[in-house]
């Protein structure tokens, strides 16, 4: 007989095991879907999860995709830990890319070591500016940050659209919706000859270390934790609630903006319409799959990055639409939420008493 028993306290081991379980269940369900579609499940999963990263190039692509996911998810965890629901990282990424791209375009025919730092900084500032809108509206006008941050995503994409077809479009570009190529000095350096992985990965790793330190070692991290559990307690303790809301949104926006910089100055090298395959939204899944824990987020970003690559390989080798990748991302989140049930309940197998 199977019995479901409430746990006395959420188990810490289960807390970190459920993401693993969720990934396992996603594989099983994914295999089943492939089977129904008429593919051999194991072969399909191999194309999806193993073939893409089996060589050096594939591994570099994996890190390339994981970098923005990790960076954004780290930023988002500042918001989520303190009870602020910023789901507009995609917009902050886009706006950061617009600002840094704009700066990079100013220097399109110049060289100089000083250009890249300015471009990076501009991206962070752009992301922060864009994140400050929902933060200020929330603190001073009591608006709902979920709605505001989400809607601003579409605004930013339309601004980008306007810029790349209009004022910023490449004068020698035959009316393609894209800007000039940035100068080499505005590009993040590649790490290895022939591979696309670039120096942006160091930004992500730095964010991991800094966030770990802030979460667990600083007063700010403590205040975020308290506010995350109970805003009433935060008020009673005398924390400056409005300041903190704005601060976490700024941090989150800066991270997303940096991710945007990484995309346009890394692999792309110019602004065009499609600078991000929804990294800003997918990073929400990464943040939760990683349990809002910096180290967890590294692993989660690698896992979720595979779904991007796998979708492409599967499209090429098996003629499966690449949107399967989104199906997998959705399933991971679904199974994660479902297996969170085990945090609070345990399943007991007991022999019949009689």
């Amino acid at each position, binding site marked *: 007989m199977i019995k479901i028993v409430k746990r*006395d*306290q959420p188990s810490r081991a289960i807390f970190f095991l459920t993401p693993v379980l969720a990934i396992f269940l996603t594989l099983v369900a994914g295999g089943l879907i492939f089977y129904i579609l008429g593919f051999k499940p194991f072969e399909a999963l191999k194309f999806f999860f193993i073939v893409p990263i089996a060589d050096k190039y594939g591994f570099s692509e994996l890190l390339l995709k994981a970098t923005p996911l990790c960076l954004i998810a780290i930023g988002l965890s500042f918001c989520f830990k303190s009870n602020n629901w910023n789901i507009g990282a995609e917009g902050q990424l886009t706006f950061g890319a617009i600002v840094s791209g704009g700066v990079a375009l100013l220097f399109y025919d110049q060289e100089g070591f000083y250009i890249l730092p300015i471009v990076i900084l501009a991206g962070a500032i752009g992301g922060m500016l864009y994140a400050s809108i929902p933060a200020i509206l929330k603190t001073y006008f009591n608006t709902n940050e979920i709605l505001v941050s989400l809607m601003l995503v579409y605004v930013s994409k339309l601004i980008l659209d306007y810029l790349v077809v209009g004022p910023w479009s490449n004068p020698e570009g035959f009316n393609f919706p894209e800007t000039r190529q940035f100068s080499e000095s505005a590009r993040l350096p590649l790490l290895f000859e022939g591979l696309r992985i670039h120096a942006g990965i160091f930004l992500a790793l730095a964010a991991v270390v800094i966030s770990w330190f802030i979460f*667990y*070692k*600083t*007063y*700010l*991290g*403590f205040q975020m*934790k*308290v506010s995350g*559990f*109970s805003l*009433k*307690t935060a*008020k*009673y*303790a*005398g*924390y*400056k609630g409005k300041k903190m809301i704005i601060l976490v949104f700024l941090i989150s926006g800066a991270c997303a903006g940096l991710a945007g910089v990484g995309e346009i100055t890394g692999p792309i090298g110019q602004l065009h319409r499609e600078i991000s395959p929804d990294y800003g939204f997918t990073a929400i899944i990464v943040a939760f799959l990683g349990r809002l824990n910096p180290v967890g987020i590294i692993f989660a970003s690698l896992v979720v990055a595979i779904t991007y690559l796998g979708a492409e390989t599967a499209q090429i080798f098996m003629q499966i639409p690449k949107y399967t990748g989104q199906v997998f991302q959705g399933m991971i989140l679904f199974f994660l939420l479902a297996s969170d049930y085990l945090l609070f309940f345990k399943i007991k197998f007991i022999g019949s008493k009689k």
Partner: protein
Amino acid sequence: MNTNLKISNVTKIYPGCIANDNISLEFESGKIYALLGENGAGKSTLVKILSGVIIPDEGEIFLNKNILKLNSPIDAKKNDIGMVFQHFNLFETLSVFENLIIDSEETPENLKEKIQLIMKKYNFSINLDVPVLNLSAGQKQKVEIIRCLIRNPKVLIMDEPTSVLTEQETSELFLSLKKFSEEKILIIYITHKLKEVMKLCDEVAVMRRGKLVSVSKIKDENIESLATKMVGQNLKTIKKKKSSISSSEQLIKVTDLNFTSEDPFETNLENINFSVNRGECLGIAGISGNGQSELFQILSGEIISDKNSIKFSNNFIGDLNPQERREYLMAFSPEDRLEQAAIPQMKIFENVALNNFKSSNFFNNGLINENRIKEHSKKIISDFNVNTDNIELKSQFLSGGNLQKLIIGRELITSPDLLICFNPTWGLDVGAINYIHETLIKINDQNKSIILISTDTDELLKLSDKISVIHKGKLSKIMSADEVTSEKLGILMGGGEID
């Protein structure tokens, strides 16, 4: 029709503790039964078994000789067992009516009619269209009671129902309960308040440490005998000795304090004036929902007021936040232990760090000084008798009494000049109440001051030097505790006048 409820050899074992040890009890309708015991005696487990929330390891329950299988609260409802829990199960953002209709099978029109009838019959007045979060604790309780009554229960179990009620409300509740009993509803009344048992009940079962200690008729018992059975030792009564050397040095003075809330369901405060001298305890009595919570928040700095309205040891502090006020040696113990004063999911030492006082050096240059916090926590645990030696324990595993000791300890260990506390003994057992009361008296003796906002009149009469009553956001004149009686307080709490 008469109802007979029988509990037969019920046992429930948790890891490391026997919550119910072979309990057998029998109840008949037409009588009101008290289930008496300290916190942790096992009475909550027993009533949760009766209401289907917990399934016992052994034993059976019979209703009118038929065996009851209670596997979930739904089974209890189906078998006409109604339960009003101590902690409310209401959706805060939904209206009263929406809360009531959620688990009802009736049409909205029928239900509304039924609710109106019940409210009329028992003199409840609650606006059905108001969101529950705007109700006072007392009103929320009434919503819970109405929710049970809608189902015409045969058995009604009340878990600590008066912990949020005032004396007037309590006597109204008692009248209602007696009326239910006359209507042949079997009432089981869980409490640790002895006076209530003596006043209301016909028979009493006492539990201690998971065991049934005695079952007897109320007329064969008195408060002392019951207290001894409950605690298992002879209680010493504490009485505050009036401070003979009452200092005349004013510590806090509140002048013309007004508060107008944007939320129409909060209470506005009107022209509040009082002062407290060093070594004094000012008690503020009142029915819950008359502005106590607003007053507490203004005194603690959660709500900022006019700078000049609060003067504390010669500084005007009305515009400071709680953390800044702590630096002036004020300390605060809010009403809600689990949702405000502490965070159950955090460890004990983390909860200690919530009172961040500059000289405690919990945080240096923005970094957490964990060793310092832990050291400090250990001191609180030993100085204030918190029954654990593990400061890494999550505070949700502390009993209400121990948690409150931790909170009071956290606030007092910085030796503040003024402690402001709001219902500090709400829902605690006799032992913990005594401890908290002794502590409060002790700090008065050390020439420290207290503002005690409480709905418990006995507590106020026992601890205060001066008492005032808050009614609809206005304070009555401040009376010396010697000239006050609970009758006088009752009149003022109800909005009446005394000479």
